[in-house]
């Protein structure tokens, strides 16, 4: 006897339809799973046997062969457990096999028969919608995430409950929980930052124009504090962006149960000891890197020169193309990775440079090694470079700064103007830019960067053209000569 169930495997972030066929034949009792499966899928045998027993169902006699088709597609992980169990039960006619065709299934089995949540449910649910299957059996924890794809989730807690449902003995329905609440905005607010007017202004420009920002200065000046507050002044994600970011976070197992949909731009802050694979993705299982998790959001690189140079150089591709492609044994995986970088750095290894109260004790060699970590090519990717000096005590006693919400309003308005049309430079602005290129150490790429930043500044000012004053301000955010590699 034969039965089929449907589930989806993930290739990168893309769902691929997988048919699970179970054949129950005569012969000595045996249980084999074929179809290019990894160790986790092989181990499903034990989980399924125990799970079926815990659901007080008989284990079918005879030789059980399970095939996961298409057979050439590599299948990894524990999310196939439920579909395999259902195919076997269908083949044994413990559940009506035709009911299986109306449902897709995803979930891991516990030994006591409970259904455990798995990652990547949103992508799997999108696969089901595309395949024309509008109901998805999954753990209750995954239900609200599956619903985002437009599929009807059937929340199932236990294998016995699935069987009863498919036999038509119980009705299971998903009711959206959280009664439509919007997840709270992150608690970090720009009002916490006192002083640092210049860095705050640069942060606003970075948010409006999606410019990469480098904050340099001695330790303890609030660089990291400012950088962490960039998401708070970014507009919420557009629906398509939100879905894409959620899919990525779901595959990485990072979504919240109550509010699976990411409505705010994500912030990822990998530690500077992170490997290249951790940052751009890769490794034996082609896992997602921080660059991809920061898609549509912010990648914070705290202490930029402390990162391993290969990891930093690997970021050049996503910064240029908005994707990362990882070559691995089974082929090439391409993940989206379009993000804004905010990086912080001290101005020398000992941190005293830029602090009027201290004297730098770094040797010339140590200082050169520190600066050499940052290639010209990488520094060129930062449109805005700001030196944040140590604030005086009076500054810290000053009134709190402007709150994030007010800044965000200006950012949203500026983005609207930037999207509406190209802002042209006036002839005075053009003259100033040309003069500056002659007088200051500005490369051709540097000139283009200044032009882009000036456009954003004009949009923030609500101007229809890029004026000389906007170009002058943009010029002040070019990389300072201390960072120039001679």
């Amino acid at each position: 006897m034969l039965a089929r169930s449907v589930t989806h495997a993930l290739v990168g972030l893309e769902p691929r339809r997988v048919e699970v066929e179970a054949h129950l034949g005569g012969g000595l009792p045996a249980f084999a799973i074929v179809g290019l499966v990894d160790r986790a899928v092989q181990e499903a045998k034990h989980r399924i046997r125990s799970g079926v027993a815990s659901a007080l169902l008989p284990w079918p006699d005879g030789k059980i062969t399970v095939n996961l088709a298409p057979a050439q597609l590599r299948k990894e992980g524990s999310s196939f457990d439920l579909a395999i169990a259902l195919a076997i039960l269908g083949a044994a006619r413990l559940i009506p096999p035709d009911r299986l065709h109306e449902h897709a299934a995803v979930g891991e089995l516990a030994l006591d028969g409970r259904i455990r949540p798995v990652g990547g449910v949103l992508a799997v649910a999108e696969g089901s919608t595309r395949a024309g299957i509008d109901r998805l059996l999954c753990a209750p924890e995954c239900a609200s995430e599956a619903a985002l794809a437009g599929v009807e989730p059937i929340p199932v807690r236990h294998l016995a409950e699935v069987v009863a449902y498919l036999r038509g003995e119980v009705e299971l329905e998903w009711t959206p929980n959280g009664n439509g609440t919007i997840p709270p905005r992150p608690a970090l607010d720009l009002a916490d930052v006192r002083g640092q007017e210049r860095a705050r202004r640069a942060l606003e420009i970075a948010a409006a124009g999606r410019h990469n920002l480098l904050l340099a200065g001695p330790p303890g000046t609030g660089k990291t504090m400012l950088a962490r507050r960039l998401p708070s002044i970014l507009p919420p994600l557009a629906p398509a962006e939100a879905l894409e970011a959620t899919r990525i976070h779901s595959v990485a197992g990072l979504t919240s149960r109550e509010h699976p949909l990411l409505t705010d731009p994500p912030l990822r802050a990998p530690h500077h000891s992170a490997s290249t694979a951790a940052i751009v993705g890769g490794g034996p299982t082609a896992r997602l890197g921080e660059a991809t998790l920061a898609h549509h959001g912010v990648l914070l690189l705290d202490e930029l020169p402390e990162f391993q140079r290969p990891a930093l150089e690997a970021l050049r591709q996503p910064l240029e193309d908005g994707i990362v492609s990882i070559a691995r044994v089974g082929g090439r995986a391409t993940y989206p990775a379009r993000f804004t970088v905010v990086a912080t750095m001290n101005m020398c290894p000992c941190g005293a440079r830029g602090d009027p109260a201290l004297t730098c004790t770094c040797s010339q060699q140590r200082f050169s090694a520190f600066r050499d970590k940052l290639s010209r090519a990488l520094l060129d990717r930062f449109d805005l470079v700001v030196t944040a000096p140590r604030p005086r005590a009076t500054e810290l006693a000053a009134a709190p700064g402007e709150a994030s919400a007010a800044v965000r309003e200006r950012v949203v308005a500026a983005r609207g103007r930037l999207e509406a049309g190209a802002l042209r430079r006036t002839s005075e602005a053009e003259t100033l830019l040309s003069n500056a290129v002659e007088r200051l150490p500005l490369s051709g790429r540097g000139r283009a960067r200044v032009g882009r930043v000036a456009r954003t500044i004009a949009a923030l000012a609500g101007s229809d053209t890029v004026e000389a004053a906007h170009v002058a301000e943009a010029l002040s955010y070019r990389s300072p000569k201390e960072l120039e590699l001679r």
Partner: protein
Amino acid sequence: MRSIPRARLPPLLRAIHDPPACLYVRGAAADDVLERPAVAIVGARACSPYGALVARTLGKELAAAGLVVVSGLARGIDGEAHRGALAAAGATVAVLGCGADRDYPAAHARLAAEIRATGLVVSEYPPGTEPAPWRFPARNRIIAGLCAATIVVEARERSGALITTDFALEEGREVLAVPGEITSPLSAGTNALLRLGATPVTCAQDVLELFGLTPAERQAPPVEGDATRILAALPATADELARATGMAAGAVAGALTALELAGLVHEAEGLYRAPPSTPGRQSVDRGFA
């Protein structure tokens, strides 16, 4: 590469008590550049942004007024003084403590090439001589010997630059020092010199007076409105300027760029300063000098 035997050395250098046997000379300038009125600008290798700005400005303005700027091609003050002179298209001479064919320090190879293109690189050591610690004090006696006056911009308490001033004093040459903050170890050497009676340098004019020269003509760029308020509040960080003037951070940034392009403001490590002797900030009465 040419060489000047002792008999044909410039008179000032020949006058010191142990003039070099021979001077090896490399560069596009004629040898008689060494006989023109010259001033040495020396100081710490690990200088502060303040010292670098002063050295460059002095190098530029003294060279523009017609003096030859002599220094030792080292990192820090020396390099900035040479760069300043080159920026003014003036004459500059680098005295090395190794063969004149060597680029030392290696990081200044390009600067050395620029100096050779318009000025001179000289050494008493034959080509191929390696740099060695004991050769640098000897090199300093040539720097002091070539010049009628030696300016120390920034020096720690036991700086090599003070060896140069010792030589200058022994030969009865003028020694000048740039005052610094009394709390800064980088100015301990120069402030000590001032206490001993060295002439303080507050602008290029102080040096030019010794030579009876007048500063090169330069027209002051027009400064108005916001820019005046910013100039009055210097030195300061951009944030302090925003608070002091009540302007928005963006407006301050734009105004600072305009001032930088006009050469009225210099930025280093986040701190903006007016270069020494900015026109409009000079209100000192020099009548009694």
